[in-house]
């Protein structure tokens, strides 16, 4: 098996490359450049890197002002701080005017691990998806991260890209090309569809393989562009497989599950299950322990699939 690869390093390297190609790329960080990996860019382009200190609200405002003056700012910190700590700044300084700011956050979800509740970002997708005009991406591995960062730089408008702390096994090869707004069919299947984002994509694929041994054939979609969501792929999955299970490292409310459910309810109601954190905060622990405790494993996905299939008409 291939070694897991850091999505954060993939971001740092992609940003560095973009910086070489385009003088308008600038980067900002809030005293976490060693963790978000914007330090690669900072080292090479100190005149285009702006350390904002532990002051996320100000960082968002500076990024907005730079975008208004024609720059393409990449602002990074932990997902728990943006948009959470500076929601109104993201709303009024970036989203409302539709400014060309790229928010790339790391340490999203439960998999940040031992740092515990204060650092576990489990509401960020709900918050950011609530803002009109934002494009929201949750890459599934390092290769998709690199691709998504490049597409964000080349596409006008506000972006939010959420990365996690752990290294992730690759689900794509080097030839993968990220297609903004399009779900990726990772596996064909007709009995049910698993729609996943981030590190749950790999788990979804493993769950699908396991279920196959029992004769249950699942389609697996990587919904890496969470917003605008690929409605056509969802409706097609509902029509062709008749059951949908979503899987995300986020609260059950307001994230992938909610967005998919809206599309399903309006267009093609089918039984659904939601693999996500129920209405609670988590605690300290190893990432694998936390994912297990809060119901985000392959086994949970398998159970979800069976439960959804059982309710098919």
């Amino acid at each position, binding site marked *: 098996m291939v070694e897991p690869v850091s999505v954060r390093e993939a971001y740092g390297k992609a940003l560095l490359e973009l910086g070489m190609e385009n003088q308008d790329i600038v980067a900002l960080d809030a005293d976490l450049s060693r963790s978000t990996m914007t330090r690669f860019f900072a080292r090479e382009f100190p005149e285009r890197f702006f350390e904002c200190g532990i002051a996320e609200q100000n960082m968002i405002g500076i990024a907005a002002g730079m975008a*208004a003056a024609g720059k393409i700012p990449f602002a990074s910190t932990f997902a728990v701080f943006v948009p959470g700590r500076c929601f109104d700044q993201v709303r009024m300084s970036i989203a409302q005017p539709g400014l060309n700011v790229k928010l790339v956050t790391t340490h999203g979800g439960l998999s940040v691990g031992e740092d515990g509740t204060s650092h576990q970002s489990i509401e960020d997708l709900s918050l950011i998806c609530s803002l009109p005009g934002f494009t929201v991406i949750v890459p599934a591995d390092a290769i998709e991260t690199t691709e998504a960062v490049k597409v964000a730089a080349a596409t006008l408008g506000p972006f939010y890209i959420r990365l996690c702390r752990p290294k992730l096994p690759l689900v794509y090869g080097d030839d993968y090309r990220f297609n903004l707004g399009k779900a990726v069919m990772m596996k064909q299947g007709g009995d049910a569809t698993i729609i996943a984002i981030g590190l749950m994509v790999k788990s979804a694929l493993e769950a699908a393989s396991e279920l196959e041994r029992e004769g249950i054939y699942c389609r697996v979609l990587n919904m890496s562009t969470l917003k605008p969501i690929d409605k056509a792929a969802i409706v097609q999955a509902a029509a062709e497989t008749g059951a949908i299970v979503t899987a995300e490292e986020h609260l059950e409310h307001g994230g992938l599950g909610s967005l998919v459910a809206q599309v399903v309810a309006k267009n093609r109601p089918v039984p659904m299950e939601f693999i996500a954190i129920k209405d609670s905060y988590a605690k300290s622990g190893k990432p694998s322990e936390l994912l297990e405790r809060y119901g985000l494993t392959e086994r949970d996905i398998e159970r979800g699939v069976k439960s959804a299939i059982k309710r098919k008409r």
Partner: protein
Amino acid sequence: MAKKSLAETGGSKSTSATSAEAEVFSLSASVAEMEAMAKKLRRHIVTMVGKAGSGHPGGSLSAVEIVTALYFKLMRHKPLDPQWPDRDRFILSKGHAAPLLYATLAECGYFPVEELLTLRQMDSRLQGHTDRTITPGVEMSSGSLGQGLSFALGAALAGRIDGQDYHVYVLLGDGECNEGQVWEAAMATAHYNVDNLTAIVDNNGQQIDGWNCDVMSLDPFAGKWQAFGWKVIEVDGHSIPQLIDAFKEAQKVKGQPTVIIAHTVKGKGVSFMENNPDFHGKAPNAIEIELALKELE
């Protein structure tokens, strides 16, 4: 073509024009002309807020001379090309003073003066608080306080990276300085030795719930800015000559940012609005409009 004078531009229709053909706004106005303009802007503010039936007259009236001096004497700008890359920027952080900014932009020729009467109405380009996406000349969507200095810093740093010589002006309210983000931005502006940005505080002493000293004390106000690494200039915010001198002095300060603390009177120019927090966010009624306009003749 000759540059348009202050008198000629008032009320002119704005049309789209390219950078090359749009003219740089003439800054030849005399102090007397600017004082007359200030009075005119006050009349606009009272009239438009009165017509709208809601809005913020107090904090608009207090900053009239500040904004007049900037648009008519200091800033390099092109009313017919609001996005001109070389323009000096004016960021209205205290977005509730939108009526003042709209009146000024209209008098400079960014859009027709008649449009001022559409303030706060459905489908108007003149929103209750500023919206950079629809109003020509508005640099920032504001109204949620505390965000403008950060935005201005971003614009100033961007200009510095590109070697552009534009200057960024940002107008804050004194009450607005309750917001923590203002001080995050103050710290960062000094940290980056930004000298192509000047902040102005409309220090009218009041906020919605009353006098600043009762709501949330700001003193020592100048000392706070100094402690954050800023050069502080204090002026009578209703004296156009003092303001102009202060802006010119600020331009000469290198290696650190400057804040001009402009001592003003909330509701300035209309006796019953002066120092009256009731008129922070309340429109005058028909009788009050008439009285106010009489005072502003």
